[in-house]
C-alpha cells in the first residue's frame, strides 16, 4: 500500500482529502505546516507521494519543496493551493514539484492525477 503525505494547515482540507484517499486505498500521513512536515521527513518518513499547500504558517509550500527535495529526490510532489500566481508556479516547478493543482479539486480528479503520477499505482 502506497503512502501519501498530506501537508495543509486547513483541518477540513486534510480531513476530507484523507477520507477520499484512504477509500482509494492509500495510507495517509499528515502535517499542518512545512515545519511539521520536515520534522517527519527528517525522522525518516518516506512517503510515495507528497501533496502540499503553498500558503502555510511557519514554513510554506515552496520552502517545503526546496527542503524536502534535498532528502527525497525522486518522490513526486503535488501542490494543492488557491495560489494562481505564475511566479509561484514557476518557482515550484523549478524546485522540483511534479504538478500544480488549484483548489477546489474534486477528490475523484485528485485520485486520477495521483494514479497518473505514482509509478505502478
Amino acid at each position, binding site marked *: 500500500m502506497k503512502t501519501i503525505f498530506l501537508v495543509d494547515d486547513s483541518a477540513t482540507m486534510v480531513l476530507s482529502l484523507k477520507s477520499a484517499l484512504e477509500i482509494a486505498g492509500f495510507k495517509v500521513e499528515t502535517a499542518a505546516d512545512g515545519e511539521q512536515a520536515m520534522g517527519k521527513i527528517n525522522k525518516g518518513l518516506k512517503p510515495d507521494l507528497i501533496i502540499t499547500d503553498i500558503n502555510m504558517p511557519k514554513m510554506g509550500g515552496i520552502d517545503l519543496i526546496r527542503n524536502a527535495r534535498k532528502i527525497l529526490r525522486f518522490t513526486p510532489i503535488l501542490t494543492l493551493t488557491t495560489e494562481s500566481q505564475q511566479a509561484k508556479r514557476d518557482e515550484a516547478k523549478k524546485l522540483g514539484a511534479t*504538478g500544480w*493543482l488549484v483548489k*477546489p*479539486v474534486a477528490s475523484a480528479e485528485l485520485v486520477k492525477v495521483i494514479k497518473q*503520477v505514482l509509478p505502478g499505482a
Partner: protein
Amino acid sequence: MASSAPLQGLLPRWRQRLADWIAPGPCPAAGKNDPAMAGLRELDRQLLLQLGRAVGLSETAALSFVERLAGLRSQSSKLVTYLGHAQTQSDAMQDGIELNSRIIHELSSFVQTLPAQIAQERGHFRQLVGEVQGLSALTDTIRGIARQTEILAINAAIEAARAGEAGKGFSVLAGEVRRLATQSNESASRINQDISRLVATVEQGFSGDFAARTRHNEAEAQRLDRLTRQLDDSYVDMRQFYDMLMTAVTQHNTELDRGIGGLLDTAQYQDVFKQIVDRLAPAMHGRNDVLADLLSRLRAGQRDTSDIDQRAQALAAEYLVLEAAHRDPDAAADAAPGEPGQRIELF
C-alpha cells in the same frame, strides 16, 4: 424686474443661513477630496468587496452542502422504504419455505413406505402361489389314486371273468370300485375346477387389491411430483428475489457513496474562504499604519503628508494585486491543458 432671477435663490439661502446660525448643521466632511482619505476609502471598498465575496462563497458552499445532504437523505430513505417492501416479500417467501419443508417431509415419508409395501405384496403373492401349487399337487394325487383304483378294478373284472360263477360277487365289487374310481375322478375334476375358480377369484381379488394400492401410489406420486415442481419454482423465485435485492442495494449504495464523496469535496470551500479572510488582516494593518502615520505627522504639526498620501492611494491597488494571485474557486478549468493558469497541471 431684471434682477428677479437671482432673487429667486436668495430667500432659501438666507433661510439656511438663519437655520445654521440657530443650530449649526454638520460641517461638510473634512477631507472629502483629501487624497489620503480617498485612498483609504478605496481600500475599504475593496476589503468589503472581498469580504462580501468570501461570505457569498461560504453561503454557496453551505447551500451546496445542504442540498447534497438533502439529496443523500432522500436517496437513503428511498432505500429504507424499498427494504421495507422487500421484507414483506421475504415474509411471504418464508411461508413458502415452511410449506416446502412439509412437502419434503411428505415426500420422504411416502418414499420410505414403498419398499415395505412392495415386500408385503411380494410376500402375499408368494404365499398364494404356494397354496395354489399345494392344492394342485393334491388333485394330482387324487387323480393318481383314481387311476390306480381304476386299473385295479379293471384287473379285478378280468380276474372275475376268468373265475366264472365264483367271481360274480367279485365282479360286482369290482364294478363298485370302478364306480368309486370314476367318482374320485369326477371329484378330482370338480376340485380342480374349484381350484381354478379359487385361483381366478384370488387373482381377481388379489389383483383388485393390488391394483387399488398401485393406483393409490400412482396418484400420490403424481401429487407429490406437482408439489416438487412447486418446491423447485419457489427456490427459483427465492434466488431471483435475492439476486435482484442485491443488485438494487449495491447500485444504490454505490451512488450514495459517490454522493458522499462529492459532499466531502465541498469542504474545500471552507479553506478558500478562510484564506480570503486571512488576507484581509494584513491589508487592514497596512491601512491602520497609514492612518497612524498620518495622525502623528499632523499632531507634530507637519503639513506635508504627500508621501503618506501616496501610500494610502496605493493600498487598494496593492490589495487587488494580492487578491489576483489567488484563483477564483468557481472558475472552471480556465485555461486549456498546457497553458499556464489551468486548474490541474503536471510538469
